[in-house]
């Protein structure tokens, strides 16, 4: 079976690189084709890369607290670009400050993300969910 492609990166002016490296490593080990855009990625770069590589999913990370500003309209932007079937996941420290996760999750769902992960999530959870959503069997 052909490997599914996942585009990953850290959005906005965010330079937190460590989690991004580990996500690449983990997706790769799990059998995905990973396109890692690294840190400081704009919405446009995510979408262009997804189109170009015919990606099945985009994993957006935001650690530095300004994700709320950076991710605004991400879902709509993807749709406009014709990315209707691409899964959008987002994770990291998605808002400024320690807060209940439920309202944060809702906020990002509203922005068009399919799945939202709380601070310090195990990336393997994300990979499991991805396999489930893509109906990939182990």
């Amino acid at each position, binding site marked *: 079976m052909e490997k599914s492609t996942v585009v990953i990166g850290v959005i906005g002016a965010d*330079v937190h690189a*460590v989690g991004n490296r580990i996500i690449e490593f983990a997706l790769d080990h799990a059998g995905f084709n990973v396109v890692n855009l*690294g840190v400081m990625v704009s919405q446009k770069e995510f979408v262009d890369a997804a189109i170009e590589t015919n990606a099945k999913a985009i994993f957006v990370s935001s650690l530095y607290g300004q994700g709320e*500003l950076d991710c605004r309209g991400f879902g709509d932007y993807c749709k406009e670009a014709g990315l209707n079937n691409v899964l959008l996941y987002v994770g990291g420290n998605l808002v400024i400050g320690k*807060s209940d996760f439920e309202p944060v999750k809702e906020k990002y769902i509203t922005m068009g993300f399919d799945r939202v992960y709380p601070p310090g999530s195990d990336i393997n959870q994300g990979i499991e969910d991805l396999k489930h959503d893509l109906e990939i069997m182990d």
Partner: protein
Amino acid sequence: MINQKMPLVEFLALRQEVLNQWITGKEVNLEEAVAYQKTIKADKRFSAKLKQAALDKVTLVQPRAGVALPNDLKKLLKTLQDEGGADLLPTTIDSYTRHNRYIEAQTGIDESIRIGKSLLNGFPAVNHGVSVCRDVVEYLDVPVQVRHGTPDARLLAEITLAGGFTSFEGGGISYNIPYGKNNSLEKTITDWQYVDRLVGYYEERGITINREPFGPLTGTLVPPCISHSVAILESLLAAQQGCKCITVGYGQCGNQIQDIAAIKTLEKLSKMYLNRFGYKDVRITTVFHQWMGGFPQDEAKAYAVIAWGAATAVLSGATKVIVKSPHEAFGVPTAEANSNGLKATKQLTAMLKDQVAIESPMIVEEMNIIEAETNCIIEAVLKLGNNDFGLSALRGFEAGLIDVPFAPAQCNANKALPARDNNGAVRFLDFGNLPFDETLKAFHRQKLKERAETERRDVSFQMVIDDIYAVSKGQLVGRPR
């Protein structure tokens, strides 16, 4: 990049360009700024307070903190001062300003006003301008420093120094490598020569501004020799432009022997190299950063990590310690959580200040290792750059002679890989192009072999990953489950 103190005319010419980068640049009048800085008394100046602390052999405590709006910032910093007992205060700058994206910063300010909550992860000082900065600084009783992560901080420096801040963090290397992706090292070093020259200008006029290269870099398993090398190069670069008061920094690795040895060698080596190049009147102090990597989510556990950092800071003899909060794993702390980190730290800086630090041959041995490693790097780098500090840094990074683990910057080689040894000290698993001699390499290999044997697995990248998660999962060495 130049290899001399920037001539005054050149500097003044360049200033006009810098001040035009954003509207608030116009507010800066250097003569008036010098006069204003002269009105700031010693107890509100970084330089004086650090000098006194070094004399008294105490460790000062300083938090990180910044929010979008001036009044909120004042309230926040006042709480940290009065409740938390901070000896020194920060103003952390937001990430848009750090990338000179002043338009987005403005959106952040406007939005924050609209919804009544800070949407920026720091204080956009450039957008707010000189007089707002002064208003903030005047409101407080202790010295205030600019802390950021800005590759091109020229305008930020102009505005905040005219705004009454008495210390400025960063450097052309330490605010490039961990804080950017595509920034040319040549450009960031040049831009920071400007910042240092500005500080040098104040110095010429009798105003000492404290400069602090950012020690912890990526905060993630950075071996002491790497951060020491950056600190030394940035100190030389700063001294060359006329800075006289420099605080070199280090981020806690977690093994007490290595951490104590690191602070001791950091001070010693910085002074040695400054002396060697004739900068004998530069005053060096040290800053110890509590654990800069991933934190445990549980607050009780976070307190333990904070306290361990506080204890090691004092016992290493650092002049100040930068404090984390029990919210670290989640997000920018509330004033209360931030104060709690300060209070926990202060309890130990005070309780331990009278204790004689343990002297031990084990610390001396570790110091020898760090010195040998750092000397290997610095000598190789200076040779490559013909003792031109900027050029040396540039070529050193190009050649991978200095290599910062997990850095996002493309100008960093990213070949060297760190991992902990069996006792938790951070060593190299892969040297990349680090110019270590064979004795040193054999030492590192031996250390990792010991660990591999204990864990009955091969030395591999999995160890590195396990080490990255370890502290947040309540370990130091990332043992296999």
